[in-house]
């Protein structure tokens, strides 16, 4: 099934995670924007990408700024 990259909901989800982790909102916004920008750059070179690959790219980018945020993003579907 094809899905469009939903930037808005991703930002919203990451902001919720960041707040729950106690990351200051300014810093969280900066991490998230940089991650999204970098992800979009990578996506430009590809027409189609699997959901897992997209998640891997986002996790890799988030890891550069905040390891716990990246960990939560990567693992929240694997908790139960």
């Amino acid at each position: 099934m094809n899905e469009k990259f939903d930037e808005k909901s991703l930002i919203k989800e990451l902001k919720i995670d960041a707040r729950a982790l106690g990351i200051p909102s300014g810093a969280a916004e900066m991490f998230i924007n940089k991650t999204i920008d970098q992800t979009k750059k990578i996506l430009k070179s590809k027409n189609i990408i699997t959901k897992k690959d997209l998640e891997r790219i986002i996790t890799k980018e988030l890891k550069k700024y905040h390891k716990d945020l990246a960990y939560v993003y990567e693992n929240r579907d694997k908790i139960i």
Partner: protein
Amino acid sequence: MSVFTSLGILILAMLILLSLKLIPGIFMLFTHFNLGKFSRKKAEDLSIFFIFGVEIMFALVFIFINSIFHLLSSTEIIFENAIFNFIFAGIMIALCFATFLFYFKKESGTKLFISRKTAHNFILKAKTAKNRSDAFLLGFIAGIPELLFSLPLFTISFIEMSKLSFPYLSFSALILVFIFISVIPLFIIYTLESTNHNLAELEKSRIKNKTFFRVFISTLYLLLAILIIIPGVTS
């Protein structure tokens, strides 16, 4: 069966219930999303209603077991202790193997035995819950898939509690104490998540202890089977 055997069975059943991972897992995610979306006060309020939902579900399970026993006692079915002990011991041994083999999925993370669709539905509900009724309902349904592992524990605990008599503590009060103790991990999770320990830390510790809990819960089921069967054999 002596008082000590009954107490031993109760303690083992309680330890297994405290070690099961589905309700705490859903609660961890629920608290995480609430702390990210709402004020601390609202997150706390919703967490209390989630725990209340779990407690009501446990209470209804006990009421259901009570009704079944009441129904059976009014029929002509004769309860022979030894046979019932063997049946329960058999169930516990089956659960011992089931826990060891498929309680945790053999994948990364702490994915449990429930289907992926059910897990995604729980995660979605935890993410989108926004008021007390959502929180209560999520708490209420959180333990239902795990009844496969917990219903025999509730049943054996019910039987053993009915045999015990404590001064100043009636049977129903004993059940209430049992229900309250079984939700203590949820209070601990809330306290940890609302202080300095976030979801990432808690999940890392769950992954680290995954094998330990797999073996621990299986061993407890086996010990429970032995404790149930021994009085049947000796009598």
